[in-house]
C-alpha cells in the first residue's frame, strides 16, 4: 500500500489511463500551467510528462470545453475535461445536459460519448456561493449521465479509471477539501466499478447513507455514538447514478432506520431520491421515520460562522440519529 492524498490518487489514475490509452486526453482551465503549484493537485506534472498535445489548457470557455468533450468523444477519443468549480457547471451544462446525455439516445444507440467531466465541489474555504454549490442532484436528474462522488483516495483512483473506460458520459465530482486528505491506495491496479456502494462501517442500529466529504463526518459521528453503544452503519454511495440499491436496501433492512446525509441543499437534493427508493422497496423494514441531514436551503455564505452553520456536521448528524432511535 502507498499513502496518497486524493489529489495525488486522481493524478495517478489520469497518468495510468493516459499511458494505457493514447486516445485519453485532458482539457480545462489551468490544468497544465495554473496559478497553484502544489504537487498534490490532480493535474500536477501532467503537462510536463504528456505534452501540450494531450494536456490542453483552454481559455475561460466552459461551453467550449464541454462541447470539445462531446465532439471528441463521438469520434472515439476519450476526453477527460475539467470544469474548475461545480457552479461553473451551469456554463457547460447545455453541452452536458442537452448533448452529452442525450445524443446517444437520439442516435438510437448508434453513437457513443465516452467522456468524463471532472469538477471540484464543496464548501469550507470561504469563497462563497459562486464557488461552493454542490449540484450533483442536477446531474443525477439527467438520464444518460453517470454521477460519481468519491470519498477516499483509493476510491477516487479506482472510480476515475472506471469512468475513463466507461463508454458513457460520467460526471466526476471531487470535493476540494478531500484533495489534501491522505489514505491508503493499493500499489497494483485496482478498478472500482461504477455503481457499487461500500459499507464503510457496519452497525446494527441505524444506517447513514452519504457520499464524498460527508463520509468523514459520518464516520466521526459513528465513532462518538459507538461510545454510547449505538451502532451506526455508514454506507458510502460512491456513485449516485447508477445507484447501488442492493447495498442500500440490505443495510436498511438490517438496521430498520435511515438517515441520509449530504452537503448539498435540502430541497430537491439527492437524499430525497435515496429516501424514495427506501420507502418504495423497504418500507416494511423501517422502524422509524427517516431523516435527512443536509445543507439548509440557502446559497453558501462566505463569512466563517455562516459557512460553518451551512455545513452538516457530526453533531447535527448525531442529533438526527438520536431523534429516530
Amino acid at each position, binding site marked *: 500500500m502507498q499513502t496518497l492524498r486524493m489529489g495525488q490518487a486522481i493524478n495517478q489514475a489520469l497518468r495510468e489511463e493516459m499511458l494505457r490509452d493514447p486516445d485519453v486526453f485532458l482539457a480545462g482551465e489551468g490544468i497544465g500551467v495554473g*496559478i497553484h*503549484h502544489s504537487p498534490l493537485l490532480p493535474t500536477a506534472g501532467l503537462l510536463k510528462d504528456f505534452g501540450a498535445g494531450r494536456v490542453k489548457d483552454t*481559455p475561460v470557455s466552459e461551453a467550449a470545453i464541454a462541447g470539445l468533450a462531446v465532439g471528441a468523444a463521438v469520434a472515439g477519443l476519450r476526453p477527460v475535461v475539467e470544469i474548475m468549480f461545480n457552479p*461553473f457547471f451551469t*456554463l457547460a451544462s447545455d453541452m452536458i445536459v442537452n448533448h452529452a446525455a442525450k445524443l446517444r439516445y437520439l442516435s438510437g444507440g448508434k453513437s457513443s460519448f465516452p467522456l468524463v467531466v471532472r469538477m471540484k465541489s464543496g464548501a469550507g474555504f470561504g469563497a462563497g456561493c459562486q464557488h461552493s454549490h454542490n449540484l450533483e442532484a442536477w446531474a443525477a436528474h439527467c438520464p444518460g449521465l453517470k454521477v460519481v462522488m468519491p470519498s477516499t483516495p483509493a476510491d477516487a483512483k479506482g472510480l476515475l479509471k472506471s469512468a475513463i473506460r466507461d463508454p458513457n458520459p460520467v460526471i466526476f465530482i471531487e470535493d476540494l477539501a478531500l484533495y489534501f486528505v491522505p489514505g491508503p491506495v493499493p500499489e497494483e491496479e485496482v478498478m472500482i466499478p461504477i455503481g457499487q456502494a461500500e459499507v464503510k462501517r457496519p452497525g446494527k442500529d441505524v444506517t447513514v447513507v452519504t457520499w464524498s466529504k460527508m463520509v468523514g463526518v459520518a464516520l466521526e459521528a459513528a465513532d462518538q455514538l459507538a461510545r454510547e453503544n449505538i451502532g451506526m452503519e455508514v454506507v458510502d454511495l460512491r456513485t449516485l447514478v447508477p445507484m447501488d440499491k442492493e447495498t442500500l436496501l440490505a443495510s436498511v433492512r438490517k438496521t430498520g432506520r435511515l438517515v441520509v446525509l449530504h452537503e448539498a441543499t435540502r430541497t430537491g437534493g439527492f437524499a430525497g431520491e435515496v429516501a424514495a427508493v427506501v420507502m418504495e422497496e423497504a418500507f416494511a423494514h423501517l422502524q422509524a421515520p427517516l431523516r435527512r441531514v443536509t445543507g439548509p436551503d440557502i446559497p453558501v455564505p*462566505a*463569512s466563517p460562522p455562516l459557512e460553518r452553520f451551512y455545513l452538516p456536521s457530526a453533531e447535527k448528524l448525531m442529533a438526527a440519529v438520536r431523534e429516530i432511535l
Partner: protein
Amino acid sequence: MPIPKAKKLEMLRSLLLARRFEEALTELCQIEGKIPGMMILCTGQEAVGAGVCAALQPQDAIISNHRSHSHLLAKGADPKALMAEIFGKRTGCNKGKSGTLHLAVPEVNAPCTTTVVGGGPPIAVGRAFAQQYRQEKAVTVCFIGDGATNEGSFHEALNLASLWALPVIFVCENNLYAGAQRFEEHTRAPNIADRAAGYAMPGVVVDGNDALAVYTSASEARARAVAGEGPTLIEYKTYRWRGHGESDLQLYQPKEEIAAWQATCPIPKLRAEMLAQGLIGAEALQAMESDIAAIVQEAIRFAEESPYPEPHEALEDVFA
C-alpha cells in the same frame, strides 16, 4: 475637452485610496485566519476604476467582477462597509454573505458584482435596458477581464447591446493574464477591442495606466450612450502587479515584466502631472495621503471590532 481640476483631484484620490486599501489587504492576508476565502487584488490597475468612475454620474450603474475593489471605491462605496464584508463581519455591506468576491453596493449603483467569469455582460445589458426603457440619461458600465471575453455570454451581450443600441460601456481591463494564461495563450486577436467590429460597435484601445486617458475615453463612450448611439467596447491595456490572487506565487509572470509595468504605475504619472501643472501642491498631496491612510486605518479598525454575524443569520436574505 479639458479635464476639470476637480475631476483630476477625484481621480488621484481614487487611485490612492484603492492602492492603500489593497496594500493593507496584502498585509492582512499574511495574518493566519484574519481574512476568509480568496483575496483577489487589482494593484497596478487602479486607473481603470478611477478614470471610468470619474466619468460617471451617480445615476450610472456599474456591474463589477472578482477584481472589484477599485471599481467600488471609485464609485463611492464606503471603505468601512467593504472592509467589514471582506472580513466576513455583520457590518459588512452584504452582512457577511458575500465576502470579497461578490461585493454588492446598490447604494452607489453597483447592484451586482459577480465572480462567475462572463457573468457581468448580460446583466449589464439588462441594467442598461432598464435605463433605456425609462428614458434615463444614464449608462451602465460592465467591468470584465480579458479572459472573460472568451465566454459565450460576452458575445451574446455585445450583440444584443449593439442591436438595441443600449447605453452600455463594456470596459475590458486587459491585464495581460487570465489566471496563469498570458493574453496570447488564450486569444488570437491582437486586441480585445477588435472584437467590437463583429458587433458593429466602436472598439477602442486605451492606455489603462493613464487615468486621464481612461477618463477621456470613458466620457466619450458615455456621451455616445446617453445620446442613444449605443454601446462601446473599451480595452484598457494594463497589468496586475500581484498574482491572480494573494496565494498565487506568480511563477509564470517574468520578474522583468512586472518591473517594467511597475515603472508605468498610474499613481506617480498623474501625481507628477498635477504637481507640474500646479493643480496640487506638495502639502495638499501630503494631506490627501494622510487622510486616505486614516480612512484605511479606520476601515480596518471598524472591521476588526465589528462582530461576526450570528450563525442563524445565514438563513436570512434568500427571498425578498
